[in-house]
């Protein structure tokens, strides 16, 4: 499959429609069955695939309608974890934090079924979406492994098996989210590099790692050693301040360029987003740039999400046309 210049994608999560939120609440209280909930999760997935197709995005995501939290989802599906309870991440956002209570590992493939379903709905490529071993370890309490290293490497082997299963199921793009990777850069970054080598070893899929917030300059250019094809980063959150960092050393991988803020209600203007892309192209060649939001959009409203996706697509089209010198009419 061929991608256009500046392909447009998303980080992973989209907001859940109100019927699904309601169904999740009811399921929690045992008022509806797992099957009934799954049916609504599939409906929401279909709707998001359709939205992305209609907007003209290039690499789609399934929207993670069946996940509560990016770490708890894997903890729930894998052996060795329990859920300790809710802890606050910011404002009034809480997440169920897992606790490692025994040897961790896969019981069976975790994400393959949902990937296969989402891919069956579209001819556009759908990204396989995984949470990386360092982040799963870092965002869980550990009551079992004597060291973080042992836990991270054991998880890396499990996520590697998942990568191979996704590839076998037809995933050409696989994203391994590692938003926690720069939590303790001095102490742990080599461990994170080692873990990612295990995770992507032997796969021919195009691999992406999403890293957000925290001190990115501190791990640059070291982060370019991570064994993935693309690093997906939040640029808009600091108004493209990270570009100064990327001037220190050439950005040798592809970049997933976060061009809209995932945590503001305001939908950016097309011109503002196009400017962000143009600014980036002065530092990183266009052939290496994918267009993306800063982070998963699940905390936005549906209208805000669609609005932000739309301006990404339009801004990418404008800049793409500037680059190729084609003043094409609007598609459709």
């Amino acid at each position, binding site marked *: 499959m061929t991608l256009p210049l500046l392909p447009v994608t998303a980080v992973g999560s989209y907001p859940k429609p109100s019927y699904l939120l309601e169904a999740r609440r009811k399921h929690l209280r045992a008022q509806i069955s797992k099957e009934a909930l799954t049916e609504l999760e599939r409906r929401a997935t279909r709707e998001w695939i359709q939205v992305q197709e209609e907007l003209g995005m290039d690499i789609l995501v399934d929207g993670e309608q069946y996940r509560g939290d990016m770490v708890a989802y894997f903890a729930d599906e894998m052996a060795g974890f329990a859920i300790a*309870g*809710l*802890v606050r*991440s*910011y404002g009034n956002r809480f997440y*169920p934090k897992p*606790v490692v209570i025994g040897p961790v590992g896969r019981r069976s493939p975790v994400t393959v079924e949902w990937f296969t379903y989402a891919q069956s709905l579209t001819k556009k490529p759908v990204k396989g979406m995984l949470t990386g071993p360092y982040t799963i370890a870092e965002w869980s309490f550990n*009551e079992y492994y004597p060291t973080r290293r042992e836990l991270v490497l054991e998880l890396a082997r499990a996520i590697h098996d998942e990568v191979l299963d996704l590839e076998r199921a037809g995933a050409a793009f696989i994203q391994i989210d590692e938003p926690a990777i720069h939590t303790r850069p001095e102490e742990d970054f080599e461990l994170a590099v080692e873990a990612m080598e295990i995770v992507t070893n032997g796969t021919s899929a195009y691999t992406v790692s999403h890293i957000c917030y925290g001190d990115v300059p501190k791990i640059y250019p070291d982060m370019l050693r991570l064994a993935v094809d693309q690093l997906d980063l939040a640029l808009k*959150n600091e108004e493209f301040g990270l570009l100064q960092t990327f001037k220190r050393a050439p950005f040798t991988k592809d970049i997933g360029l976060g061009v809209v803020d995932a945590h503001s209600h305001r939908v950016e203007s097309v011109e503002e987003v196009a400017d962000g892309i143009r600014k980036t192209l002065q530092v990183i060649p266009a052939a290496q740039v994918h267009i993306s939001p800063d982070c998963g959009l699940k905390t936005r409203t549906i209208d805000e999400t669609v609005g932000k996706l739309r301006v990404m697509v339009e801004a990418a089209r404008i800049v793409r046309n500037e680059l190729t010198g084609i003043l094409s009419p609007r598609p459709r």
Partner: protein
Amino acid sequence: MRETGTGNKEQGTEDTGVMTTVIGNYPKIPDLPAPGKWRSAVEKFQKGQLDEAALRAVEDEVTKEAIADQVDAGVDLVTDGQIRWEDGQTHFARRLRGFSINGLQRYFDTNVYFREPVAEGSVEWTAPITVQDFAFAREVSARPVKAVVTGPFTLAKLSRNAHYSTFAAYVRALATAMNAELRALAAAGAPVVQVDEPALCQDKEEFPVFAEAMRVLVQGVAAKTILCTYFGDVGGVYPQILELPFDVIGLDFVAGHRNWDVIRSAPFSKELQFGVLDARNTRVETPEEIAAAVRRIAGSVPPERMMLAPSAGLEFLPHGVARKKLRALVEGARAAASDVKGARA
């Protein structure tokens, strides 16, 4: 939900010589599946279905419950749980003059995020920030309440300076502003005021700036003062840290396990807030483990010169685990105290 403020003053460990306290924040909502009244209230407030007075009333209730958890567990010196704080930075920056609030940043090596304050003008204290909350907590608590503020160095490190020409000038301005807050707390009758400075453990090379700020900060503050560090050790600034004008120094012996060695490198001349229960792991310490830690440090700090504490705020834990940690803290103090009595008998 339990009755609040029912703590029994006869319980606890004040007779046995090992005092207990907490660092500051406490979970705002109960365990699953309940969304919790605070979370529901904030959601309704954001949708315009609840007015500010009603939200404040819910915060009052949850504050009472957080205090009751501490009092019922037998903690000697409690806090208000910082239920009303979104985080330690914006709680002050939004109420000082000179700041705007920017995008999300990670809080040290945690999975907690806060909006970054930006100093766009001269930083000034205009009115008390935490005094009313302290007065409320004292009113509803059966135990003494410790007032807690974020220190100027940490506020400076976790914000962006777009106004002052040097970092030192920025920290000094924050120290002057926060000095007014500490004086206001002392004037309101706060017996103990704690200044949180976790950033010191990350940026020790700036100790001269830090030390100057601390002197400005506590000038004329008529209360017992605690300098509280966490998320790391104080190696490199010890024993200089003992020369700062505080009565108590808080150290984290979990994330800062090197503090075990650091504290042996020179006589510890102050009172110690002994952060030894792991506030960031669900595994609950046994009384024997805590008693052993008290024995281990006794050569540097005798039990009567310490307050046992968790290593950081308990809000990193789910509510049910935080409550267990409070009980473990007090049971640990009792085990340590009977150890001491046994040794002296």
